[in-house]
C-alpha cells in the first residue's frame, strides 16, 4: 500500500460525491441521463424485497433467506450531456445489469431512469421501442451481430426496424462505415472479419440511428490488448467528433481512467464511489477502491492540484507557471529542470506551489509500488 501525497490535501476535493466541476448537481433538469434509487433483484417474489428490512441484508444473507439475489442496489447518479461516464467494477458487481436496466433490456425492480427527459421506467412498450430506436444505442461485449447479414445490413438494422427505406438506410449505413474506418467491407459477412473489426461494426450499428446516447457494455474485453487500445482511441476520437453522451461499462481501471470524465465504482451492486479519475485515484473512498487503484501510474492521473501546497509569503516567484489541472507527469520535467518551485495559477490567481519534492513523491512512490510487484 502506498501513501498518498499529502501536500495540499486541504484544497483537494473530496471524492465520494458527484459534481466536481463540469457535471451538474444531481437532479438538475438538464442531465442526459438521470438514475434514481434503481434496484434490480433477481429471484422469486423479487419485488417484495425492496422497501423492506430485507433490503438491508447482505447479498449472501438475502440469498439464503429469500432465494433472491441482488443485482443492483439503490443506485442513483446523473450523466451530463456529452459526458463520458464510466461504470467500473469486477465481474459480479452488477455493472452489466445496471446498464441493461437503463433501457430495460433487464426490467428494473424499483427506481426511475430518466433519459433525455423521458421516463424510461414508466414508458409503454411502444414508447420504449421508440426510445431504443432513436435515443439510445448499445455496443455489446460479444458484438451480437447477425451472421446471416452483410456488414452493411447489420449496420442498417436499427434503421430497418424503424421502417426506413432500403436505399436510404443503406446510404446512411455506408456513411457510418466510413466514419468507423470500415469502408470497403460493406458486403462482407461478420464471420469474415476479425474481432476488432466486428466490434467496429457493432459501433457503427450503434451510431447509425444517430442516438443522443451510447451505452457500451465491456465492448473491448473480448479483444486483444493492441486492438483494444486502438478501439479505445477510436471511441475517444468519435467522442470528439460527435460529442455523444456515453455510458461505458468496464472492469479495466486503465480503460476507465483513459476514457472517463467521471467514474462510478461498483461492488456487490452498490455504488462505492463516483468521481473524476484523479479523485478516484487521489482520494479513494475506501480500502476497496484504494486497493483497486494501487497499481495506477499516479503521475499520469493526478494533477498538480493534488500535490500543491498553499502559497506562503516567502515563495519564489520565478518558477514556471502552470494551471492546477496539469497532470503531474507532464509538469515533472519542467518542474525539475527549474531551480524554483512551480507556481500553480488558476484564473490569474496564485493558488498553490509545487516543489521538486512533491513531484518526486508521486513519481518515486509509483516506482516503489511497481518495483515491489512480483
Amino acid at each position, binding site marked *: 500500500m502506498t501513501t498518498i501525497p499529502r501536500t495540499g490535501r486541504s484544497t483537494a476535493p473530496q471524492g465520494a460525491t458527484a459534481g466536481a466541476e463540469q457535471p451538474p448537481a444531481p437532479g438538475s433538469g438538464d442531465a442526459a441521463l438521470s438514475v434514481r434509487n434503481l434496484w434490480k433483484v433477481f429471484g422469486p417474489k423479487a419485488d417484495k424485497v425492496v422497501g423492506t428490512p430485507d433490503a438491508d441484508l447482505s447479498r449472501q444473507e438475502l440469498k*439464503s433467506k429469500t432465494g433472491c439475489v441482488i443485482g443492483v442496489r439503490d443506485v442513483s447518479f446523473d450523466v451530463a450531456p456529452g459526458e463520458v461516464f464510466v461504470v467500473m467494477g469486477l465481474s459480479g458487481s452488477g455493472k452489466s445489469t445496471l446498464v441493461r436496466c437503463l433501457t430495460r*433490456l433487464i426490467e428494473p425492480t424499483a427506481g426511475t431512469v430518466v433519459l433525455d427527459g423521458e421516463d424510461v421506467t414508466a414508458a409503454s412498450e411502444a414508447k420504449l421501442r421508440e426510445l431504443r430506436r432513436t435515443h439510445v444505442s448499445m455496443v455489446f461485449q*460479444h458484438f451480437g451481430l447477425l451472421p446471416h447479414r*452483410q456488414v452493411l445490413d447489420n449496420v442498417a438494422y436499427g434503421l430497418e426496424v424503424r421502417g426506413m427505406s432500403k436505399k436510404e438506410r443503406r446510404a446512411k449505413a455506408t456513411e457510418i462505415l466510413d466514419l468507423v474506418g470500415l469502408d470497403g467491407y460493406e458486403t462482407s*459477412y461478420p464471420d469474415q472479419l476479425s474481432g476488432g473489426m466486428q466490434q467496429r461494426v457493432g459501433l457503427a450499428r450503434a451510431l447509425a440511428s444517430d442516438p443522443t446516447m451510447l451505452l457500451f457494455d465491456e465492448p473491448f474485453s473480448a479483444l486483444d490488448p493492441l486492438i483494444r487500445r486502438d478501439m479505445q482511441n477510436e471511441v475517444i476520437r468519435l467522442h470528439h467528433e460527435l460529442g455523444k453522451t456515453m455510458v461505458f461499462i468496464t472492469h479495466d481501471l486503465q480503460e476507465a481512467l483513459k476514457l472517463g470524465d467521471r467514474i462510478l465504482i461498483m461492488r456487490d451492486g452498490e455504488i462505492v464511489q463516483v468521481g473524476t479519475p484523479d479523485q478516484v485515484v487521489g482520494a479513494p473512498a475506501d480500502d476497496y477502491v484504494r486497493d483497486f487503484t494501487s497499481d495506477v501510474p499516479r503521475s499520469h492521473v493526478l494533477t498538480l492540484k493534488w500535490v500543491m501546497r498553499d502559497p506562503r509569503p516567502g515563495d519564489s516567484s520565478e518558477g514556471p507557471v502552470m494551471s492546477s489541472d496539469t497532470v503531474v507527469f507532464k509538469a515533472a520535467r519542467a518542474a525539475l529542470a527549474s531551480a524554483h518551485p512551480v507556481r500553480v495559477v488558476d484564473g490569474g490567481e496564485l493558488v498553490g506551489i509545487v516543489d521538486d519534492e512533491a513531484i518526486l513523491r508521486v513519481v518515486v512512490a509509483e516506482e516503489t509500488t511497481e518495483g515491489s510487484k512480483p
Partner: protein
Amino acid sequence: MTATALRPPGAGARPEDDVAPVQRMRRIPRWALAVAVVVGWVVVWYFTKGTDTLTLGGRENTDTHDTLTSFRDWVLASRDTNPIVQLTTSIAEVFRSSVDWLQRMLSTANLPRPVPEVGWLGVTAVAAWVGLAIAGWRIALLVTASFLSFGILGFWQDSIDLLIVTFLAVLAAVVIGMPLAIWIATSARANSVVSVVLDLMQTMPTFVYLIPVVLFFGIGASGAVVATLIYALPPLVRIAGHGIRSVSPTTIEATDSAGQSRMQRLRKVQLPMARATIIVGLNQTIMAALSMATIASFVDGPGLGQPVLDGLKINDVGRAFVPGLLIVVIAVMLDRTTTAASERAENVARRGGHQHERRRKLLLAGTGLLALVLVYVSRVSLWAAEFPESELGTSLASVADSASTWVTDNLSSYTNPFRNEFTVLVLNGSDDRPGLQSLLAESPWYVTGAAIAVLALVVGGLRALLPTLVCLAGIYFLDLWHDAMITLTMTLVGTVLVMLLALVFGVWMARSRRTDLVVRPLLDAGQTIPPFVYLIPVLALFGPSRFTAIVAGIVYAAPAAIKLVADGVKGVPATTIEASRSTGATRWQEITKVQLPMARSSLVLATNQGLLYVLAMAVIGGLVGAGALGYDVVLGFSRSEEWGKGMAAGASIVLLGVMLDRITRAAAADRSAPREPSRTSRMRWGGI
C-alpha cells in the same frame, strides 16, 4: 444447489466421509440383486410353469376385446351425429380429395384422359428443377435418375403416390409444426407441456397409431396422411424449437436494443439464424414421413408400401424386392436433397449469398422454362405421358427371387440350424432349463408380473416401480398378457444383442478415426431406410419366424445405438484419458474404467432407444411369422370382427413401450443427475 455451493469445501466434505463407507458396505450391488431375483424366478418357474399363463388362442376374443369392437361400431354408427367424428371426417375428406387431385394430376388417369394431366417427363423435369433450385445441379441429377428409375422398374404410379402422401403429410406437419416450434421456443411453460406430448408420440411404435387413426379418419389415403402427419410432426417441432431457442442471446439483446418489435425479432433475427437447424428438422420430418407412409399401406394407404406388403404377406421376396429397392432410392433422394439444401442454407447464412446471384437467377429462369415446355410435351404426347414398358423391373424381380431361392436352398443348411439353435437356447429353453421366452410367458402371470416389478425396482428404484405397475396392470386388463410377454421377450433379446453390437462398434469407432470414417456413412445410410424394407433381406435369409423379426429389429436399431455409444465415448474429455494413461492404465482398463463409465448416460440412452426401436420392429415382424402382439394388430387391420383385439394389442404395445422407456430413464436418473445431453440426442434420433 447454490446453498451447497456456498458452503465452504471443508464443511461439505465432512458428512460424506462419515456416511459413504458405511453405505457402501451395506449395499449389495444392483447386479447381484437382479441375479438373485432371476434365480428365484427360475426356481418358481420350475414348479409352476404352464399354469395361469393367460394364453389366448389365435382367433379367440375376450369381453374386453368385444367391448372395444362395439366401441368402434358405435363410433362408426354415430358418424352423422357426433361432432368430433364429423370434424375428423371432414378433415379426412380434405386430405382424401387433395391426394385424389394430386394423383389425377401426376400419377393416375384423369378420366376421360387415359393418362394423368402431367406425364412422367413433366413430373421428372419439375422435380429436377426443384432439386436444382434448392440444392444445386448434382442433386438435380440425382432426382432425375431417381424419378427415371421409378418408371424403368415399373412402379411409376406407386412411387409418385408415395411421394404425394409424404408431401401432403410434410406440408401439414410444417403448417402445424412451425407455430408450435416458435411457441415452445419462446415459452418455457409451452415447452414443458408440448414436450410431454411429443415424448408420448415418439415412444409409440409406428404401427400403433394406425388403428385409432383409421377409426376416425378412414382407411386409404386420408388415414395414411393423418398417421404419417402424427409420426412426422415431433422431429420438426423439437428440432426447430431447439434451433430457435438456441439463437445467441447476445444477438437477441443487441437487436432488441435497436428497438425491434417482437414480430421483427422473430422474422429478421430468430428464424433466419435458426434456418439451418430448421432445415435439419425438416429433413428428419421428411424421413419420418416417408417411413410412416410406407407402413400406412397396412391401412390401404397408396404408394410403394403396398407391393412390398403384398410380397411380405406371402413371403415372396422377389415381389417385395423391387418396390423395396425403390423405397430406398426415394429415401436416399429425399435425404440427400434436404441435407444438401441445409448445407447450402448454412453457407448462404455464413458466407453470404451466391456469388453470381444474377447468373443463378437467369439459369433458374431458363431451366424453369424448359421444365414447363417438358410439362407441356408430357400433356400432349403419349410417349411423354406414359412411361414406356420396360422388362427391367420384372427381370430384376426374378433375379431377386432366384437369389432368394438360392439362399433358401443352399444357405438354409447354415442359417436354419443357427436360427433353431438360437431359438431353443435363448427363447424356448427345454423342460428343465428355461429360455427367456418360456420364463416370461410360461410362468404364471402373477409370477412374471411380480418379477418384472421387482427388477424394475432394483434397476430404476421407486421412480421406475410405479409406472411399471401401472403398465403391467394395463396389459393384464387388456387380456393379451401371454402375447405381450412374447413380444417383450423378443424386444429384450434384440436389445441385448443391439447393445453388444453398440458397445463393440461404438468403442471401436470412438477409438479409431479410420473405423469411424468407414462405418459412420453406413450407419447414416442405414438410418435413412424405412424400417419396412429391412424385413425383405432378413426374410430371404431366415424365412418367416420369430427369429427373423428379432434380426430385423437388431438391424433397424443398431445404427442409432452404435452412433450414440460412439458419440458418448468420444465425448469423454481428452485430458481425462491423458490423465488415466499417465497412471499407466492398460487399454482395457482405459475402456472399462474411464471411457464407458464416463459415457454412462449415452449407454443408457442407447439402451432406451434400442428397446423402443426393437419393440417397433418386433411388432412389424408380426407380418413375417413373429406372431404375438404384432400379429394381433395385423389381424385387427384385416378382419373387422378382430378390431377390438387389434386395438388392445396396440394399446399393450404402447404400455410395453412406456414401461421400458420409464425403467431405463429411471435407471439413468437414479445414479447420476439427469444430464442435458440425453435430451438433445433423444431429439436427434427422435424422428427415426
